[in-house]
């Protein structure tokens, strides 16, 4: 029974008449649950990335990319616990946090509550459980490094990649995070990035650019005479699966970024965020389909999938803008800039296996600017925030990658690349019975 909704309202009124507001403890439960709910959805995005990337690589590198994905999520979880959360959120000086919250644990008050103390009111006033917040922040951190794994696939060695993942999630991402969500200088300037078009997606995207440049393209991708030999992804159903899972998880990514559910205002805001998130992705898909048809006379499924991601990334900076039409347009433009960026990167010989740079960095920049364009922020400040991400992430990740290159080596040798990483670095071939 739907519209019959109107029949329900009286009963709500009846039962709700005594006290109209949400009690502090109820709000605490709602807020905490939102973090858990949103966090679980964003955790699931790690699978989305894993599947998307497994679909876009060749058979012979499929196990390696799966391993990198489960490893990076695990490493992110550990590094963010050890130092990342603390650097990002604890005693942020403006430029960076401290190590005071390393090995982050429940608060003393919460532990007391669990041990039987009757400090419910004090706890309720904190608004949410610290562990739930930690969880929600951690999964965002994992997203940033997921972006790198896809772009650099099929040629980066497994161990150096895992070490870079530790650097990225333990240091690089938390520093930029401290400037923004941690309350540092960009936050003080009023930089507006609701769920992280820049903070998560561009940061990951810049590291991906640096990785691709230092690694160089896959063997055979660009020939000396300037020709491009595309290397088709082995498994499109996996790529589509990954894209849909990302879309699904994004409701937690953006919706959870309201950071509270314990009032009508928050519930309304999240509803709007969810609708905008969805319609932006729709716009991204439709725009990418139409544009790929125009540009290539045929539809490119892989570009349509990237279009969905680009639409989602684009709306991530401002899903709280209250006009759904605007969101649709922001998403559609995200799909367009991504579709255009894909062949441009190829012309620049930046070999991004999954289109991560186009979908996350390019669309992320667009989305961050769009907030200002559609009235949710100051244009100059938005530009500063975008530039700051590049200025921070490019050198730091270059240093990380170069040190790895100089020491244990970053790229597999030619023979390994020809044979595939699965046989060379792993014991596990992805599809042993399919040849």
């Amino acid at each position, binding site marked *: 029974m739907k519209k019959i909704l109107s029949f329900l309202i009286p009963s709500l009124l009846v039962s709700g008449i005594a006290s109209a507001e949400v009690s502090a403890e109820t709000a605490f439960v709602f807020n905490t649950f939102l973090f858990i709910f949103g966090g679980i959805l964003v955790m699931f995005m790690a699978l989305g990335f894993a599947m998307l990337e497994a679909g876009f690589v060749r058979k012979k590198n499929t196990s390696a990319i799966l391993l990198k994905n489960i490893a990076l999520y695990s490493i992110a979880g550990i590094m963010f616990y050890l130092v990342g959360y603390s650097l990002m959120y604890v005693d942020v000086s403006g430029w960076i946090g401290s190590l005071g919250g390393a090995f982050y644990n429940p608060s003393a008050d919460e532990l007391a509550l669990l041990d039987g103390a009757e400090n419910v009111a004090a706890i309720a006033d904190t608004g949410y459980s610290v562990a739930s917040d930690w969880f929600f922040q951690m999964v965002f951190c994992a997203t940033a490094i997921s972006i790198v794994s896809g772009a650099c696939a099929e040629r980066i060695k497994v161990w150096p990649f895992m070490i870079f993942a530790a650097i990225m999630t333990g240091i690089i991402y938390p520093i930029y995070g401290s400037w923004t969500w941690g309350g540092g200088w960009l936050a003080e300037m009023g930089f507006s990035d609701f769920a992280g078009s820049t903070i998560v997606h561009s940061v990951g995207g810049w590291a991906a650019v640096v990785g691709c440049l230092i690694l160089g393209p896959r063997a055979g991708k660009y020939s000396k005479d300037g020709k491009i030999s*595309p290397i088709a992804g082995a498994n499109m159903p996996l790529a589509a699966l990954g894209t849909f899972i990302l879309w699904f998880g994004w409701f937690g990514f953006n919706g959870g970024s309201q950071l509270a559910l314990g009032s009508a205002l928050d519930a309304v805001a999240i509803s709007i965020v969810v609708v905008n998130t969805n319609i932006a992705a729709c716009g991204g898909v439709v725009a990418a389909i139409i544009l790929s048809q125009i540009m*290539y006379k045929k539809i*490119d499924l*892989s*570009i349509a999938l990237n279009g969905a991601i680009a639409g989602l990334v684009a709306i991530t900076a401002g899903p709280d803008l209250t006009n759904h039409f605007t969101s649709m347009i922001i998403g559609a433009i995200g799909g367009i800039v991504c579709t255009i960026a894909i*062949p441009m990167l*190829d012309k620049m010989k930046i070999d991004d296996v999954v289109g991560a740079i186009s979908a996350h960095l390019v669309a992320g920049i667009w989305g961050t600017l769009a907030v200002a364009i559609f009235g949710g922020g100051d244009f100059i400040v938005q530009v500063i925030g975008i530039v700051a991400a590049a200025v921070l992430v490019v050198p730091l990740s270059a240093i990380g990658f170069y040190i790895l290159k100089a020491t244990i080596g970053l790229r597999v040798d030619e023979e390994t690349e020809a044979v595939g990483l699965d046989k060379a670095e792993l014991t596990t071939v992805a599809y042993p019975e399919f040849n």
Partner: protein
Amino acid sequence: MKLVTAIIKPDKVEALRQALTSVDIQGLTIVEAKGYGRQKGHTELYRGAEYEVHFLPKSRAEVLVDSADVEKVITTISDAVKSGKIGDGKIFVTEVSEVVRIRTGERGAEAIK
């Protein structure tokens, strides 16, 4: 005895099977292949970059026959798979000095009856 090998389009395998059966040739082995001859592949697009596909999917069919049946088999195959368009494929014949039916140990012409 002879071995007649035909490189044909994959979607003609079923027609070939029916045609051979109808002329009472009771044996056939098929292998998936790729190749080119006069028909030269084509260009495809992926994520905005054009690339050449040199090989086209083909099926490679082998029929062991009595020497006397070679012409019949060539004609049967040709008729079954010919479209007159480029890419129809090739047939070639090689001499077979011995055939064995493993199950019975029969040899020579007996083995392909």
